[in-house]
């Protein structure tokens, strides 16, 4: 076994027909990013007391724009990216082609699903925010569109499973290449997690919006949403973690610290991501405090693999910085290929994630949650997780992925570097504003520029939010310029020939307890058992559903 995290480090080329589908799948995500950030500017400025909605022709309300922002940036960007990125890494790691039928299905389901959802969003028939809490009711086609998006992720997952099963048949007794293992584990987790939202949409919201089911159960829909809803953030985050663990060491000139620890971290995410959903419902009625406390403990548990990640990823960076000539306690940081925009974007993403993690732990802290729940603190928190750790990593990855997929060299390297810094500073400034406003009770999801109430303490917080959000928007739009420049004006033939897969310090163990790590089926079973333990007491004491609410269209 070699130290490479792929089967064959010498090379592997995916046929152009498959690259094209992967390329267009990730393009959907990057276009969604840009479509979503435009209204992000209106939201940030609204906190500052500035209403710019009149410059958005065709937009019916602030909340319609807010829904588009959430759906485009939290759902479409992330899943479109993962649907292309994870199967690509799996194919490269195993040295196998993907299944063409499943690749087509992934792309078309995603495209049609996003198209349907977008149609209902732009015509103001689905302004229910991305959480889609019943009994606010969207047009049934909107729910159908999102179901198709979920189905597209299933096709991408199936494609990876098929590739892995085929590889295993031909390589009996061998360790699964690390890059394939963590990619497959990520979507295996998402498969379990998605069952909640799938049940809610297919079992309740779709028939209810079609009139087949007269009334629905808002608490049950909410609970099913958050069954998926916490793990969904890990489904967004794990592709970024894969890049940090497996690719960034190579891009900075370092080594992956430990094969086994990396696998353990992803297994812990697989097991612990889902049974934590009630920490989003601490302030909900109808759920016992015992259940909430149990999920609080499990949430502290799922913080652990992120702590391990903080160590491993930074250790790999330190190895890189020192081998590049860095000296002293912190001198190695300067020697991390900061001139490479792909690296810079992701290093800054990691830095912002430190604060994202800390604020996340505060949210999860049971009684403390009452101070911050649904205040501006919460978007302050998640813009430092999905809004930066994930978004900036996805932008950073684009700086090699798009050249790799198109064969064209990166266009506008300096612009790309500036983009990363502007966005990172912007997100930190904005989060500072939102967090301080939230601590003073400023609500989230509210058109503050037109609110009929206010507090003196919110003024400065709102202004800081507006400044930060404006910088973020500039950063994101510059990303789009670099992206389009690369696609249309990048030099032909200058794209990288291979993905920047890393090498571990030592090859994976070929005997001992580590072999058990590769038994993904076993870990999936453990994950399901834990989910049952975490949700069965609620289900038993709550069901059957309390179907009390007809639909409301108040937008």
């Amino acid at each position, binding site marked *: 076994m070699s130290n490479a995290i792929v089967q064959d480090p010498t090379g592997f080329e995916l046929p152009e027909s498959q690259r094209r589908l992967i390329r267009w799948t990730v393009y959907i995500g990057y276009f969604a990013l840009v479509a979503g950030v435009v209204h992000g500017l209106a939201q940030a400025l609204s906190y500052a007391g500035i209403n710019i909605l009149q410059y958005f022709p065709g937009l019916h309300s602030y909340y319609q724009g807010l829904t588009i922002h959430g759906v485009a940036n939290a759902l479409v960007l992330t899943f479109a990216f993962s649907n292309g990125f994870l199967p690509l890494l799996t194919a490269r790691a195993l040295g196998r082609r993907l299944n063409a039928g499943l690749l087509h299905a992934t792309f078309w389901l995603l495209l049609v699903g996003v198209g349907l959802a977008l149609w209902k969003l732009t015509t103001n028939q689905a302004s229910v925010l991305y959480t889609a809490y019943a009994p606010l009711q969207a047009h049934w086609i909107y729910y159908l569109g999102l179901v198709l998006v979920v189905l597209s992720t299933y096709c991408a997952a199936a494609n990876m499973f098929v590739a892995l099963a085929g590889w295993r048949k031909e390589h009996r007794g061998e360790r699964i290449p690390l890059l394939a293992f963590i990619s497959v584990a990520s979507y295996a987790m998402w498969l379990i997690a998605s069952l909640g939202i799938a049940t809610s949409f297919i079992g309740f919201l779709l028939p209810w919006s079609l009139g087949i089911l007269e009334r629905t159960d808002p608490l049950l829909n909410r609970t099913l949403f958050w069954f998926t809803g916490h793990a969904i953030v890990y489904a967004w985050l794990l592709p970024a973690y894969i890049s940090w663990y497996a690719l960034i060491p190579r891009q900075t000139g370092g080594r992956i610290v430990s094969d086994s620890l990396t696998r353990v971290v992803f297994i812990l995410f697989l097991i612990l991501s889902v049974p934590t959903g009630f920490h989003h419902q601490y302030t909900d*009625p109808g759920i016992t405090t015992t259940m909430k406390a149990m999920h609080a403990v499990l949430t502290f548990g799922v913080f652990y693999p992120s702590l391990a990640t903080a*160590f491993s990823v930074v250790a790999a960076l330190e190895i890189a910085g020192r081998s590049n000539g860095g000296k002293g306690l912190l001198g190695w940081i300067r020697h991390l290929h900061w001139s490479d925009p792909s690296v810079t974007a992701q290093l800054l993403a990691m830095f912002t994630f430190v604060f994202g993690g800390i604020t996340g*732990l505060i949210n999860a*802290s049971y009684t403390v949650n009452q101070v911050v729940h*649904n*205040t501006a603190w919460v978007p302050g928190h998640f813009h430092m997780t999905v809004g930066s750790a994930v978004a900036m990593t996805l932008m950073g990855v684009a700086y090699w992925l798009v050249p790799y997929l198109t064969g064209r060299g990166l266009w506008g390297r300096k612009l790309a570097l500036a983009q990363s810094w502007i966005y990172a500073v912007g997100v930190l400034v904005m989060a500072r504003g939102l967090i301080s406003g939230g601590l003073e009770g400023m609500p989230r999801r509210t058109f503050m520029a037109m609110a009929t109430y206010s507090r003196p303490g919110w003024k400065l917080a709102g202004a800081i939010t507006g400044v930060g959000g404006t910088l973020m928007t500039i950063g994101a739009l510059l990303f789009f310029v670099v992206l389009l420049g690369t696609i249309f004006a990048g030099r032909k033939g200058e794209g990288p020939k291979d993905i920047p897969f890393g090498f571990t310090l030592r090859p994976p163990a070929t005997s001992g307890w580590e072999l058990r790590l590769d038994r993904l089926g076993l870990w999936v079973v453990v994950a399901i058992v834990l989910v049952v333990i975490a949700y069965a007491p609620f289900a038993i004491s709550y069901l059957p559903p309390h179907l*009390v609410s007809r639909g409301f269209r108040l937008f």
Partner: protein
Amino acid sequence: MRVHTFEKAFLWLGAVMLVAFGGALIFASVAMGIHLPGRAGLIDPQQLASTPPFDQPGVRQTGPNQYEAVVIGRVWMFEPSEIRVPAGSEVTFVVTTPDVIHGFEIEGTRINMMLIPGQISKNSYTFTRPGEHLLICHEYCGLNHHTMFGKVIVE
């Protein structure tokens, strides 16, 4: 670089930190009596007008220094929109909604609950000092969500 020594130390430190934080939370909820809302009963959202206590929203005294505030959050107002209680009193908020999901946040306190159709939300808080708090709906509830607020006045 002694990676594995540092790694062990870091992971132990993390574990100890999480256990300490968890201990602080247990202390807060057991010894300091800070509670989250739990299960407080079901209700038919169509029948609030005929279901006590929601047939008569308002504040009533339930004991020495103890009050119960029955509130309905609906699009796009709280009923009553002004709650007056004397300083030093413990107030139990009993709240629900006849229509969509709303929020119930009393700014400057730890009263922070979701209002979900079919469920009763309940939690208590002792107001020690006189003053005025905003009562805010912090969950999106439709077009005029940002106009939905009330006041809690501690006299």
